[in-house]
């Protein structure tokens, strides 16, 4: 008797849980579905409104038109370059610094930590103009590398914070024993600490990549040549030129979203592997 009610309880809970998960899924996907649907409509039909049921279909046409008009291939390469630069740079900088803050003691540590965090707190608008001069003096104006690098500088606050909290979670004992075994600090870093950081890295990579890909303000300010624009800026310009061509807009949005989704899904698998390894270590 007791066992049965326990089983049904569990069943009910499971069903409820799945219900919640599915509702959340729907909630997440509705806007995407809207964009997708709208991108398949004809111009005249789309004018009726994004939530009217389509009468006319134009499945591929909008995409072709948007792709050509928007010159997305070029812009995607630009975004990709910038993104890789920022992600790699941020990973390196944040891992080293996070490790330092989490596992070492030295005078002024907290002060330096807070100063670096300040980078996160000041909105970009306030340093926008002085930054122009800095970039100019370094010859990094109108250059994707310049923006990639500056994003490391402005984005490292969060990355460091995240790596630091992650490293705090790693027990000191592992590191101590490595040191006692005679490893130099560098060896400790490479052999003991780094292999454990993959779960955190995957999240950080994804987050930094997104931040870099979607950055609108910095490229708007510092890039002048049309062929160097990254994707969001291209999309923004596309929008201003075609305000009510909903179906084109939607197609353009889809084009700019799909690569990121692909990247994300790709990372999901290594994400999972990293997590499994982390869980086993427990």
């Amino acid at each position, binding site marked *: 008797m007791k066992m049965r009610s326990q089983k049904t309880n569990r069943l009910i809970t499971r069903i409820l849980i799945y219900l919640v998960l599915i509702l959340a899924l729907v909630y997440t996907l509705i806007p995407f579905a809207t964009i997708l649907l709208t991108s398949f409509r004809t*111009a*005249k039909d789309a*004018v*009726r*409104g994004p939530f009217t049921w389509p009468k006319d279909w134009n499945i591929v046409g909008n995409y072709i038109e948007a792709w050509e*008009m928007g010159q997305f291939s070029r812009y995607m390469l630009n975004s990709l370059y910038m993104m890789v630069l920022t992600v790699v740079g941020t990973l390196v900088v944040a891992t080293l610094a996070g490790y330092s803050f989490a596992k070492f003691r030295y005078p002024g540590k907290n002060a330096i930590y807070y100063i670096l965090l300040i980078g996160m707190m000041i909105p970009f608008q306030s340093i*926008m*103009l002085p930054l*122009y*001069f800095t970039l*100019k003096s370094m010859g990094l104006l109108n250059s994707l590398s310049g923006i990639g690098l500056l994003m490391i500088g402005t984005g490292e606050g969060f990355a460091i914070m995240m790596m630091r909290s992650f490293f705090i979670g790693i027990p000191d004992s592992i590191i101590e024993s490595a040191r006692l075994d005679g490893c130099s600090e560098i060896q400790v870093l490479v052999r003991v600490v780094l292999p454990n950081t993959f779960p955190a890295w995957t999240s950080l990579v994804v987050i930094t990549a997104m931040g870099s890909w979607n950055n609108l303000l910095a490229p*708007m*300010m*510092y890039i*002048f*040549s*049309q062929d160097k624009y990254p994707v969001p*800026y291209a999309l*923004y*310009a*596309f929008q*201003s*030129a*075609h*305000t*009510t061509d909903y179906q084109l807009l939607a197609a353009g949005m889809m084009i700019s979203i799909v690569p990121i989704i692909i990247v994300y899904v790709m990372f999901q698998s290594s994400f999972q592997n990293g997590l499994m390894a982390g869980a086993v270590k427990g």
Partner: protein
Amino acid sequence: MKKRTIAILMTAAMTASMLPGTFAGAEEQTTITIWDTFIDGTLGAAMSDIVAAFEEANPDVKVERVPKELTALSETLKAAFMAGDAPDIVYLEAGIGTAGNYVQAGYYEDLTAAYEEYGWKDSLMSACWEIPSADNFIWGVGNEMETMSLYVNQDIFDELGLDQPKTVEELTADMQVIKDAGYQVLANTLDSSWSNNMNFIGTLLYAYMTQEEIGDVMNNDGSWDKESVRRAVACITDWLDKGYFPEHPEVDGDQEQMYFSGNTACWVTGNWEVGNITERTEFKTSIYPFPGSETCADGGSQVNFAGGAYLVYSGSEAKDAAYRFIDFSISNPDTAKTWAEVGGTMPPYTKEYEVELSDLAERVVELLGDETLQNTAGINMWLGTNAFDFFSEAGQKLAIGALDEDSFVAEADAAKNKDVETGLTKGSFKINR
């Protein structure tokens, strides 16, 4: 050995002499940079065509064109001026609110002499220099002539037996008829977009204010507290109360969508919509000058804009080349044709040129050239920064009831006074010479 060396030397010499201009005393090539706001679309295409045509006709000048989105351009311009490497020509909105402080700081060149030299005052519409000027300093050459008008779905008007409204009061009566018949009356929203607010309010204001009153506020920093202004605001409030606006006009809405759907009878908008209307609607549209009020002594004025203007950087080292480019681009029948046909906009060129226009576009040209209508620069063109900001939101505030006649006038004047303090109104503008 010797033969070989000689052969090599000869080949080198021949190749070198074939390189254009290496030995023959090359013509000096000047490069001018121009920043504009045409990032895409028809205007971008028109500008590119014009640049190419100019370079062909003037091989000694190379034009480097950098299109940028409007906000980005304004901000980078600031930094560029401070760093001393601004472009030779900037194409931008050039009302006193936008360009005034740069002029005062001495970054823009006074073009009065250029106007004389190239005779622009004879070949271009007066708005071109009236808008970008104050205190006898002309800082720009206007382009993209635009005018606000009353656009109506003529099919609906015919069906309901309505004629062209000659006064605002007649229009109001027509609107009730339209509403009773079950159609949407206006396609205008008064939402968060500054242009939706300013264009509409500006047009209504000019329907009630006389030329004298407009001049008073525009040029002499006069007060907004005038009977005519109050009446205009009352009219807007009246239309709001009677439901002539779309439901919830304060929420961002798509005016084009509303009008193109064929269900809306009237739209207060400008000639930039002509291309879209021709392409995407199937009903007949008529363009009427916006009617003045019965209470207005001189029958009201029509709102005109210059969508953009050419400005020349005072520190440019290629000013002559810059002037030649501007002249070519604006005061020339071929480029006027390009602006109209490729760009879909109204060039300010007043002399004859060959062009094929759609019916609606021809109608606009008619209206712009009509001497009986009082074509005047709209408020967008001469308001100072604080006033500009006030009017950008005033429509939405009226729609949600956060403003009434009295507070409207009070806040407008307060904003104007702030602008006078900073010297950015036509009346208070002073250049240190």
